[in-house]
């Protein structure tokens, strides 16, 4: 191995170790903070389970079963030990192990957020390029409108409006749920990713139904995400526009689009990757309103229901999963930026 390659390998190892340390510290802090907040909740989780009319003996039994009669350090210790063994406890609101619940709901959110992210990235970058190429043109105006709509209109209201227009009135797309009733509970969903499961089932019409039901929620999330991606990318491109290397490239006779695609866009990669990472994590955790309006399962809805039910194991489990995603995605983005831009 040459000394240059060894240095690069060592540098990469250092980055990986630092990232792992960051992940560990962040997740530990997240666990402690979430546990503290859940413990301070004014809702009595045992009462939530036994109901208002249960006897004192039943209430005491449930409190004991949930470990609520233990001091909080013991509860935190016991919970942490469980998490380290992959056991997040049993959800009080579903009666199932939290890990099992998360395996069911997380793929649905991942699918929705990833599809939305792919569409948002393509549209957002295209809009940013068009807008940056002609900062006062039609594309720029369109970008402003999209940003305004995506950021100012409540997504909950926009979702209901979309459902009313495209599902109830025009009947162009499927409505709430992930599939039509004819397929929803008849095909197996081993992966929880509806597009894959519907395709793999081989049931005629199931795949088209899955796409039909995904169109509106994906477009909703795209409307929310595309403006942010496009605006930040546009600003980064315009900041590069006056640089010497751009002027030089233009002076050599290269076209506007060629310069933007081959020189300016790569130069803004670190900014674009950062905004993409942030948008993706926001979509993963922030799809709760779309999941609620469209009656789709997902980790956002699972967490919200758990919050209302003071379901501490479910709150802790889903917060840890979302936190892990946040740290991992941002870690990958940081790593990619370092690889793409050796100056960082």
């Amino acid at each position, binding site marked *: 191995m040459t000394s240059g390659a060894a240095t690069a390998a060592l540098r990469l190892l250092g980055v990986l170790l630092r990232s792992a340390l960051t992940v560990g510290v962040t997740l530990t802090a997240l666990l402690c903070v979430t546990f503290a907040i859940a413990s301070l909740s004014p809702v009595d989780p045992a009462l939530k389970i036994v109901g208002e009319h249960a006897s004192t003996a039943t209430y005491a039994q449930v409190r004991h079963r949930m470990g609520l009669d233990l001091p909080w350090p013991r509860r935190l210790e016991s919970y942490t030990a469980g998490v380290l063994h992959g056991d997040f406890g049993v959800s009080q609101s579903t009666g199932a192990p939290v890990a099992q619940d998360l395996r*069911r709901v997380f793929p649905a959110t991942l699918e929705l957020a990833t599809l939305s992210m792919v569409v948002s990235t393509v549209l957002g970058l295209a809009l940013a390029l068009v807008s940056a190429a002609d900062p006062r043109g039609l594309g720029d105006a369109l970008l402003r409108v999209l940003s305004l709509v995506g950021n100012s209109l409540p997504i909950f209201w926009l979702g*209901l409006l979309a459902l009313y227009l495209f*599902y109830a009135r025009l009947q162009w797309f499927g409505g709430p749920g992930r599939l039509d009733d004819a397929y929803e509970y008849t095909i197996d969903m081993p992966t929880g990713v509806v597009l894959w499961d519907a395709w793999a089932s081989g049931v005629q019409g199931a795949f088209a139904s899955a796409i039909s039901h995904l169109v509106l929620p994906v477009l909703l999330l795209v409307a929310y995400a595309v403006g942010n991606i496009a605006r930040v990318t546009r600003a980064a491109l315009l900041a590069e526009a006056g640089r010497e290397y751009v002027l030089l490239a233009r002076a050599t006779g290269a076209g506007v689009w060629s310069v933007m695609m081959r020189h300016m866009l790569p130069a803004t990669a670190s900014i674009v990757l950062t905004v993409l990472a942030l948008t993706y994590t926001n979509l993963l955790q922030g799809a709760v309103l779309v999941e609620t309006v469209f*009656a789709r399962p997902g980790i956002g809805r699972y967490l919200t229901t758990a919050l209302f039910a*003071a379901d501490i194991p479910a709150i802790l489990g889903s917060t840890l999963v979302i936190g892990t995603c946040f740290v991992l995605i941002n870690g990958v983005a940081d790593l990619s930026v370092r690889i793409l831009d050796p100056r960082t």
Partner: protein
Amino acid sequence: MPRSDSSTGSSKIARSLRRRVAALLIAGVWLQGACAAAPPQVLVVAQSLDDIVSLDPAEGYELSSMQAFTSLYQRLVQPDPDHPQDIKGGGLASGWQGGPGSLVFELRPDAVFASGHPVRPEDVIWSLSRAVKLNLSPAFILNTLGWTAATVDEHLEKLDERHVRVSWSAPVGPSFALSVLGSTVASIVDERDTEGHARAGDLGNRWLHDHSAGSGPFRIRRYIPHEALVLDANPLSPGDAPQLKTIVIRSVPDAETRELLVRVGDADIARDLGPDQYAALRDRPGLRLRQFPSAAVHYLLFDTANTAVPELANPALWQAARWLIDYQGIAHQLLKDQYQVHQAFLASGFPGALEDTPYRLDIPRARSILHAAGLDHGLSITLDVFNQAPFTEIAQSLQATFAAAGVHLEIHPALTGEVYTRVRTHSVQAVWLYWIPDYFDAHSTASAFALNLNDGTTSIAERAGWKIPELNALTLAAVGERDTVRRLELYRQIQTEVQRNSPFVIALQERSQLVMRDNIRGYRQGLNADMVYYDRVTK
């Protein structure tokens, strides 16, 4: 980079093909949306299932799970869907004979579980015993018979292959015992089927969270928490088999989305819509608005044990409050007839319910009561309410009418669980709550409003800190009374006393409304939460 404009013939064809494929895909997607409708032989119900904790009848005690139990399980006795006050119409027992402190039940000869196993006395004994021993949320209902985990087995005896004796140690009459045995926690579970899935001494509790082992008209095909409960018709169902093969109860948390589903036809029934939604759908073609009485009564409670405001224990405040609620305005204008005025703790439709409504909004009268009691010095009270419709709207109405008499109500909206926690710790001053009976017997409600034995936090009277030795004696006498007519008369007497002078102002009774497609026939629903019947539904 120079833009290439040299399109060849083959690339044109490829582009044309791509466009066609895209158009077909989009058309296919649109067609899917356009053709969507609830399939025939399947009833699709849109409601929220977020409240379900368990579908084990020994544990499930939420509205949605109780609605499901009637479709999944039978009890020894249960009300006839068409005549709810007659408990001889349904259930696994074809008859019974009463003795002192006991009843002997004869099982129907054709009673059989969905698994194919016949229903045996052993199943009856095991089911009742297991519910007491598990001691989960609804176990307190069976505890009212004096049964504990240590003693329950002494009270259940197999006489022969078709007869079982059930006895009790509590001083209650047989009509009360029958009501308790008709509650969902007394559902009869298939012992042989369930024991095969038991783990670590849990008596099958974990398995029954999302499976069923009953003899009702349906059985669980699939339960996905927060998503759906799918029931298949039980071909071995008692009487005629259900008309529809499948019931899909979809969990749709948002009321607006439920409305859209039923409007489009993707759902056949939508529950729990808001007053404005019902009003908007009332005359819409293809839909029918159905209204059923509900046993839920809403009331205002003053916590007399809260020493921060001593006036809360002053009966003059209780009296004035009775004239400071706009009963008619709230029921008819604010909540658009989703409620009716009802001023006694037993809901209208319950045996022994008091139908009198002596109170109305009368601010001058309330002012004079407060003045006479020296409470006209600008009293300020906090009012806790659930932070959701219609509770916040009701609280605002109360705030306005109480203010007119010089009583300032400071509204404290909070999560349901938080409000209940505050009530149990005597942290509220006034609170607006609702009550749903645990089983179809007057004692369920009377023991809540008119029984304070321990001064604890179990009954509503205890939570209000209301000390009532005379009423306690009357309530206990009523539950032990063997003469049904005399018993109901005692309950009317107790209701009159609570209506006249108590820290509760009972004001409204709910009406359960739902919207269904106009091709749906045969749906029945009764007063209590568990009285939801899908077995005769056709579409």
